[in-house]
């Protein structure tokens, strides 16, 4: 039996442990994902979607449990190692875009590649290629503050994709977009998943977006209520 690409084993997250009022955000979550999957994690607000994505991406640590990405443990490792792991293997798309404000769209897209030590030529070639796929070639010289929300989110996706990560984690990427922009962005992410074979896991509570996923996980009160493959 082959090992899953991303293995989430008995993850629990308790906020304020040891205090009188504890918040159990995740309770014994176990999930597994194969390479190249297009997954949605959905559920009501406060169900633990963001916390789960953060732990899977090494941005946060679980209270207990383990996450293994492509045979590499990403929980319980030191921050420096985790930074390199995120840089080389994981792309993030945040609900609030989170672009680096002082860099242009092109520089934001190239940032992770430059951290990886790629050549200037390779960075430029790849950023142009990704920008064309996401229809943001005309925005490359603009700063985040000069772009609309939808445009910023596409740049954020381009930044996540450009370094060719093994996994992209997107936390409610369409939450701040209008329905047209949201549909467009999802279409583009779907195409990237198919064309580049990148595993994409995103959270959402938008039924239109959820419907696009091939693997759907429903969270309720920090527990897995359903794990389905509708597509």
């Amino acid at each position, binding site marked *: 039996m082959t090992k899953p690409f991303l293995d989430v084993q008995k993850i629990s997250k308790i906020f304020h442990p040891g205090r009188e009022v504890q918040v159990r955000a995740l309770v014994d979550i176990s999930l597994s994902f194969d390479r190249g999957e297009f997954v949605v994690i959905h559920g009501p607000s406060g169900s633990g979607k963001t916390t789960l994505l953060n732990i899977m991406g090494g*941005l946060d640590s679980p209270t207990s449990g383990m996450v293994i990405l492509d045979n590499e443990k990403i929980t319980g490792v030191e*921050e420096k190692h985790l*930074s390199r792991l*995120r*840089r*080389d293997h994981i792309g993030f798309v945040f609900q609030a875009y989170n672009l680096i404000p*002082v860099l242009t769209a092109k520089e934001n897209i190239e940032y*992770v590649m430059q*951290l990886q030590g790629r050549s200037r030529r390779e960075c430029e070639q790849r950023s142009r290629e990704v920008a064309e796929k996401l229809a943001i070639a005309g925005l490359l010289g603009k700063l985040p503050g000069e772009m609309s929300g939808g445009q910023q989110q596409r740049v954020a996706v381009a930044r996540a994709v450009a370094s060719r990560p093994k996994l992209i984690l997107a936390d409610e990427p369409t939450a701040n977009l209008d329905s047209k922009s949201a549909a467009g962005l999802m279409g583009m992410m779907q195409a990237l998943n198919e064309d580049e074979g990148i595993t994409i896991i995103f959270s959402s509570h938008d039924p239109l977006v959820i419907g696009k996923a091939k693997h759907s996980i429903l969270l309720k009160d920090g527990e897995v209520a359903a794990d389905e493959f509708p597509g």
Partner: protein
Amino acid sequence: MFFKIAVRNIFAYAKRSIITVVLLACTTALLVFASAYMDGSHARLIQSSVEIYPGYVQITHQGFRDNPSLENLIFDAGQVSASLRDFPGIAVFAARFESFVLFSSADKAVGGMFTAIEPEKEMSISRLAASLKQGSYLTSADDALVYMGSELARRLKVGVGDQLAFVGTGADYSFAADNLTVKGIFQTGLFDFDSRASFVAKPYFDRVMAAENYATHFIVQPLRPEEAATLAAAIGRRLGPAFDAASWQQTMAGLVQAMRVDSIFGYITLAIIFIVIFFVVMIYTLLVIYARVREIGILRAVGTTPGQVLSMLLLESVLLGLASVLLGGLIGGALAWYFHIHPIVFSGFEEQFKQYGLALTAMPTDFAPLIIMRDMAIMFVLSVSATLYPIFKVNRFRPIEAIHHV
């Protein structure tokens, strides 16, 4: 990339950058100017006190400085002169014979210092000739002509061309007396000195005071005044244990002590200012950097290591620090240069200055590029180290905490 981000952040947070640069530049300028003023005023103090009369290096017979009596005279001035001739590091030297006499004019009798000098050599050693107020300075050929301080002349109620008599003890303990004519009156500005000092040519003095080939001391003008102590030690070795060669730091130990105390208080004041500035910069940086925690979280989330974030923030701090000290150094240096050329004049404080032995109320600053660079380096280190704690503190956030930090 990190350099680009650091530079752009400096411009993106322009208000913060301007406040930081202005604060640090003003402090740097203050430090540079304060150092220049302190060093300049000390140099002027030395100049006033040393160059007017006492000189940089003084040679006496062993024991004379503790007991300035006729037993401790230099009894073979010619031999000392021969030893000093061609001595490396000496620009010029001259013999003096200091004694005390009672002057008597038509109206009044006043005690005073009656000193034999070699007038031509003294012109290169002391400021006696340059302090001429009325009449003219002495020459070696002057016989029974006296050059006296303005206050002494005023007390004796004599002017140039007037006659007065003196009575004193010769070098052989004999009774010495003669009539003198006032050739010139000087004013150094040192009140005490001007009210008791008078000078005659040494050949005349030697004859009238039976002091042929005697001297109370020799004064040496070094080629490099700042090396007076080294020169004094070398002369001492050459002349042997019968003589005592002392630099101005030894002959004027009180002045040295006063300057040290002044420097200590000056540096304590500056240190207090620095401590205040250090904490102001640190607290301000902490506030500013906390407003950027989310941005730091983004950088960390996409794979920037804590070390890379640290170096990027440090680079910003270094760039701001460099700009500040360069600007401050330039302003402080320009002020130091200007007041070096155009000394600060403390008009109305003449009496207070006199109490401290200062002849002039004009204080030039010291313009020393190396000292300016030293002060700039101190401020640079101070400015960067003040940002270390805030940088380390924000870098300890986990990425997700940083992104959600409000």
